[in-house]
């Protein structure tokens, strides 16, 4: 279908060479490092998570940046490392620093992120596209670390706002055994208090049998209680949670990490031009875009948006621009996104999705905030110890 595109490209290219440019050609190199520790065996392993989640989003953002950059003589180059261990991830970081890369997107655990942040202070600008831990936005903030991945609290606040909207205010909560499960559950408890949801029963998940065969027998008994409006599951790695829906003692909806979930991104998001992003991603990756892909994409698009506007790839200038009023990220969530000046967290609406559809997009109208209703999601300035922009 593409006609004359080669000769046209050549003509265009010739024109770029001859036309007075707004800048000398500029190379913007970005490092992407991923290290995901082994999650251990999970019961619901029917649909595995893609291993390149995050990486593919980064690649798409590089393509997007380069299409724009081609008109400004800006060239974006991605260096990637899919590490098999923490030490391999560290080595990759050192190697990339040696190669004078100073922009990074990291999908690594919180502890690794902190170690990498130590190593890059004053040398790099980092986008955290992996770790959701609230501590990173509450006490462990770094001036050179931005978070495009929503925190657990942002996700659970979105969910609790919606439970309040539906007046499903009494919930039965099941919490898994891992650190992530506990972090998610802790965030949800805070959200529940904040938005008027009562956790009437909370039970830890302790079974270790293969629920694919016995879910229908075990879960109804496990979820026995006098009454509740919904069941909330905290099972981040997807161990048992997929077997909770339709197996509860009472006929109640299941929400949380399974059932209907608050997410950064999901294939069912289609409004606000999202169809185009989904299509582009599918063409590139041959699969649907998820939250990790989206967070990596948003980090690199933040860089691209800044460089396009300021015509400079200096990390200090990029950082200044990202925190300025002039920065607005168009990221297919229906409104402009910006970074919280105290913690470097990207403000963003949170889609609430089930596997085949969008239920709602938080924030829920009516939860007011003096600055932006997006700050009704996650820890607000007054609740955070961080002040990365004094």
């Amino acid at each position, binding site marked *: 279908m593409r006609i*004359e595109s080669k000769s046209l490209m050549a003509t265009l290219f010739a024109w770029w060479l001859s036309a007075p440019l707004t800048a000398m050609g500029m190379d913007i190199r970005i490092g992407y490092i991923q290290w995901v520790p082994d999650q251990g065996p999970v019961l619901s392993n029917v649909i595995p998570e893609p291993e390149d989640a995050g990486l593919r989003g980064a690649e798409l953002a590089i393509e997007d940046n380069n299409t724009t950059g081609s008109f400004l003589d800006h060239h974006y180059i991605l260096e990637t490392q899919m590490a098999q261990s923490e030490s391999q991830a560290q080595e990759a970081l050192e190697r990339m620093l040696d190669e004078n890369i100073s922009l990074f997107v990291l999908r690594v655990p919180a502890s690794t992120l902190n170690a990498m942040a130590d190593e890059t202070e004053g040398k790099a600008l980092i986008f955290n596209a992996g770790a959701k831990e609230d501590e990173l936005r509450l006490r462990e903030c770094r001036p050179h670390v931005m978070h495009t991945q929503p925190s657990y609290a942002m996700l659970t606040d979105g969910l609790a706002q919606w439970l309040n909207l539906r007046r499903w205010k009494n919930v039965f909560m099941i919490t898994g055994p891992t650190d992530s499960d506990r972090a998610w559950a802790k965030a949800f408890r805070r959200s529940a208090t904040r938005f008027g949801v009562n956790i009437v029963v909370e039970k830890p998940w302790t079974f270790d049998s293969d629920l694919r065969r016995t879910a229908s027998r075990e879960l109804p008994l496990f979820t026995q209680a006098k009454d509740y409006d919904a069941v909330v599951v905290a099972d981040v790695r997807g161990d048992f949670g997929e077997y909770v829906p339709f197996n509860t003692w009472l006929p109640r909806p299941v929400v949380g990490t399974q059932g209907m979930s608050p997410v950064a991104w999901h294939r069912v998001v289609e409004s606000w*031009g999202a169809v185009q992003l989904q299509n582009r991603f599918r063409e590139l990756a041959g699969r649907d875009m998820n939250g990790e892909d989206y967070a990596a994409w948003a980090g690199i698009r933040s860089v691209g948006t800044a460089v396009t506007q300021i015509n400079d790839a200096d990390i200090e200038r990029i950082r200044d621009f990202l925190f300025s009023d002039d920065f607005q990220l168009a990221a297919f969530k229906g*409104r*402009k996104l910006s970074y919280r000046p105290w913690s470097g967290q990207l403000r963003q609406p949170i889609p609430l999705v089930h596997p085949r559809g969008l239920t709602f997009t938080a924030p829920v109208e009516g939860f007011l905030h003096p600055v932006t209703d997006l700050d009704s999601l996650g820890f607000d300035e007054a609740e955070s110890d961080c002040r990365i922009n004094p």
Partner: protein
Amino acid sequence: MKNLICTSLLAILVGISTQSMASLAYVSNEKDNSISVIDTESLEVIETIPVGQRPRGILLSKDHTKLYICASDDDTVQIMDLATQRIIGSLPSGEDPEQFALHPNDRWLFIANEDDAIVTVVDVQTKDVLAQIDVGVEPEGMAVSPDGRWAVNTSETSSMLHWIDTDSFEIKKNMVVGQRPRHVEFSRDGKVAWASAEIGGTVHIIDVDALEEIKTLDFKIRGVNQDKIQPVGIALTSDGRYAFVALGPANHVAVVDAQTHEVLDYLLVGRRVWQLALNEDESMLLTTNGVSGDVSVIDVESLKVTKSIEVGRYPWGVVVTP
């Protein structure tokens, strides 16, 4: 079979009857794969015509006998004969056509291919593809200057206006504007162009001779979250008096003095107002409201919203015949 004959007969009858009518508005319904036909006298939907998948941008041929329809998910531009209200053909549009603009020569159709970062130029008579021009990510808005010299494309994710020389089909100028530029409209005299930036919340007014921005407009509506003010469609009156700007999920149309660039008023319309069209004598402005699935009617003289007309799901584009 009998039904089929009845339907065809009906179509012919309707075709004949509509031909004699005065002015009709055509509205593309993005999620209903149909075009709603509104009689602008009675302000009622008199016909709903099934078309290709995900119809978005629509426009009239210069003699108003044909309607061109971007059927985005069918990767084609359909041609509807307005006398019979039938699809009589299609044009090779490139992938995912969203918006387009017709050159004053009534032949060159400039089509933004949203998924491919390309603008395709098609000769509507020969159906030949004359050129494909690489543009930024998610090309969307298209406009051709009244003198035919410039075709302007907005690329949403690149936040640029690409000025394409229609002699050479080459880009002569790239202008970085606000985030997510959606739509461009030239003034009747061709001296200025207005471009909306949805996420930026701005409208950029550009001096066409100098190819320079002369003014950035922004909007504020009491009681409406600033983030929800997302300019999309623009309509300019030919006397240079008014510019109307659809503000998306702010559910208002801004009325701007096109000379002083002062915002005069905000008119409450349906939900997520998208595109706009004036009728021939410019006494009436129609708006498509995507989320509420209706068309608002604005009386230009009094600047009042007088009616809303229920159409299909997610109405997108609108044009009005004389």
